[in-house]
């Protein structure tokens, strides 16, 4: 159910511009880049307007195009600074070789997520711990948790299998949890 009025990029800009911008900003975390992505999205939507099947809403269709734009961007960025970085953070280090038990037992974190999120110091520690992860782990973890991409999108952008992604995220979480415990939660009891 689309009419001509709906298939107009200027109309899209005024109707969906803010929504697309928020979506892009959440991922890009850079206002220039986010606005560029919105522009590219609207232009390529216009170019491929005949492919709009009408079985989704214009909104969903535009978001789909924006997602592709973002994945393309990530791919390019990764390609430009891709180096072979293997053997990052062996997870066996977290567990005892003989017993298979935790080397440092995870403890309870008492603070609730909302107050942690508001706590500037905590967020700084969290950022520091995230930045300390081995670079591949850091990259996929940031895509997953900071940008909010889903597994499938990350696999496409990084050209890795979902198994590979799960391993990287698992290692990232082990490392991050440990770092936070050392630098933030460890003191409280």
């Amino acid at each position, binding site marked *: 159910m689309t009419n001509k009025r709906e298939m107009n990029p200027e109309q899209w800009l005024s109707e969906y511009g803010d929504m697309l911008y928020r979506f892009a900003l959440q991922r890009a975390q850079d206002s220039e880049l986010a606005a560029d992505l919105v522009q590219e999205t*609207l232009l390529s939507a216009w170019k491929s307007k005949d492919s709009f099947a009408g079985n989704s809403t214009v909104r969903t269709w535009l978001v789909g195009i924006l997602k592709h734009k973002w994945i393309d961007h990530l791919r390019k960025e990764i390609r430009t600074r891709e180096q072979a970085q293997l053997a990052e953070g062996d997870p066996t280090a977290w567990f005892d070789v003989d017993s298979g038990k935790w080397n440092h037992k*995870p403890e309870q974190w008492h603070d609730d997520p909302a107050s*942690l999120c508001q706590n500037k110091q905590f967020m700084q520690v969290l950022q520091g711990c995230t930045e300390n992860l081995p670079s591949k782990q850091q990259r996929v973890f940031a895509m997953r948790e900071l*940008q909010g991409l889903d597994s499938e999108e990350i696999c496409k952008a990084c050209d890795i299998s979902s198994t590979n992604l*799960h391993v990287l995220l698992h290692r990232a979480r082990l490392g991050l949890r440990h770092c936070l415990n050392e630098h933030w939660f460890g003191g409280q009891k």
Partner: protein
Amino acid sequence: MKHACERISQLASQQLERKLNLSERVSMFVHFLMCGACKQYNQNILKLRQVFELKRDEMVNDVKLPELKRNDIQKVIRSHLEQQD
């Protein structure tokens, strides 16, 4: 079952990425009954996930496409539309 904790921590991470099957969920549940450390690990990473979700929402809450950018995009669109005519 030597490396049970490693396996369980792996599942705990994977539940944030995909739907676990029944036997995976059962093995986590049963393991948590016996192992406080893994149970805490699970809660820790769930909590972290929530922190990140809140942060992402907060970041774009009420954000609008800046007027200047909007005008720029509008100009580009118009020039494209004119080329088509």
